[in-house]
């Protein structure tokens, strides 16, 4: 699939921003200018300088380093969440959409029930059972994402299952699993891809929201959400802290949103 920049600007902008963020996150995993957790009482709430390009937080930790590390955490959580959601959602959606009938009815009613609750509330319930932390947040959000993907994939399978080419594959003697995952699934990828982009988006926001509320990623892991929540107290003293963290989150979201819109054009 070749797409020219002029035809689909959003896709390219999305790709560039997301790529940039990805590079920063990977950098944050292996290298940060300072140890993101090293406190330095001499530099408490230090302003922007050549040494600390975004200044320091209330413990004297380098904000830029913490943003890099936080970006890494956020990306890992987002990727994990989407991976769990897409994998299980695809399998469930494929089976229910292809077979239909009673299992489909039960699954979809269950789905509706899950979707009826505000997702943050459900995440809270899961977290309170399993405890917080990077891993558990990923699992909790992942579970919450399953119904949404299942529903999208199911819709696509429902659309495809009686098309002639599927009948034809059936007549060739292909097994059910082969028909579902080799013949039909590739046809759902354009739709799936654009929802994956928006899924990253929701995952980033949800993780930031949960960490902001203190139920998400726990120290020593840094998180953009928690940094934003901490920066609140110094909003007037050091607006740069909140501004830098906030704009990184915003840029991340913007990149995924552009990617989604760009992909949707081709779905």
């Amino acid at each position, binding site marked *: 699939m070749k797409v020219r920049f002029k035809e689909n600007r959003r896709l390219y902008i999305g790709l560039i921003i997301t790529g940039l963020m990805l590079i920063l996150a990977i950098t944050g995993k292996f290298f940060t200018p300072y140890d993101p957790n090293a406190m330095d009482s001499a530099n408490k709430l230090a302003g922007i300088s050549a040494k600390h390009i975004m200044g320091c937080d209330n413990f004297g930790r380098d904000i830029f380093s913490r943003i890099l590390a936080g970006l890494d955490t956020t990306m890992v959580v987002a990727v994990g969440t989407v991976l769990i959601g897409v994998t299980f959602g695809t399998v469930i959606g494929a089976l229910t959409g292809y077979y239909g*009938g009673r299992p489909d009815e039960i699954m979809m009613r269950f789905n509706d029930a899950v979707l009826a609750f505000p997702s943050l509330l459900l995440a809270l319930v899961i977290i309170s059972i399993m405890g917080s932390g990077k891993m558990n947040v990923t699992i909790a959000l992942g579970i919450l994402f399953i119904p949404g993907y299942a529903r999208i994939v199911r819709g696509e399978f429902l659309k495809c299952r009686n*098309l*002639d*080419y599927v*009948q*034809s*594959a*059936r*007549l*060739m*003697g*292909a*097994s059910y699993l*082969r028909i579902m995952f080799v*013949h039909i699934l*590739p*046809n759902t*990828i354009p739709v799936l891809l654009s929802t994956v982009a928006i899924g990253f988006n929701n995952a980033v926001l949800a993780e930031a929201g949960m960490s902001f509320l203190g139920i998400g990623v726990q120290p020593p892991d840094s998180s953009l959400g928690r940094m934003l929540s901490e920066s609140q107290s110094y909003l007037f003293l050091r607006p740069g802290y909140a501004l830098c963290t906030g704009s990184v989150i915003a840029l991340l979201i913007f990149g995924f949103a552009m990617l989604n819109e760009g992909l949707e054009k081709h779905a």
Partner: protein
Amino acid sequence: MLDVIDLNIEFHDHITPETVVYDFDLHLDEGEIVGIVGESGSGKSMSALAIAGLLSRKKMKKRGQILFDGVDLLTCSRDTLRKYQGNDICMVFQEPMTSLNPVKRIGWQVGESLRLHTELSEDEIRNKVIKMLEDVELQDPESIYDKYPHELSGGMRQRVMIAAALICNPKVLIADEPTTALDVTVQAQIIKLLKKINKKTGTAILFISHDLSVVRKLCSRVLVMYKGRVVETGEVNEVFDFPKEEYTKRLIAAIPRMEKLEYE
């Protein structure tokens, strides 16, 4: 070889069951071309799908027997059915736009039967597929092999479908209005191709159409269906020249005049 005896098809996906095919009988010998004609909604496709084993066993109740070399396809196990499907019974559908998978390359789709039913390596499959694409008279099969369906015309796609259906040397090819969606010249080419293949490989063809002139050109025997029943059956020339049933007479009277002149 293929015997359908007293086939009844009943839909069970609404509150009241609805019978769409009554007491359908069909006999198809090796190498024979038999036509089914009838107006839209007369149950031609339903009968064909039932023979191909493509009607859901749960949603549609079928009574009667579909005997293929003595094995009843309606009651045999799923695995037995699957062995016949693709190997012995193949089908070409009406709509060339939807009968090929839009995201898979032509070569892959034509070779799928071989991948499922034989132990051939990918290279051997490729060679066979290209040979088959040649046999259905597609120009430049090498480049068509790597194309996607949307890059082909309707007539080409129908040829690809025929290639995919025939690659395992089936005994029966069911063609459900394979030419309805095509224009007249392409239609004539496809008919010619089917006839040629039938001569060469001895594949029996069950040819479904509502176009009597096409059936007359291609088939040796014909079944006339009306409202889910077979109302008349016999040799093509007999049925067309001396129709016994009122409905058949009306059907023949409805052939456009130009084509009638062609026969006389």
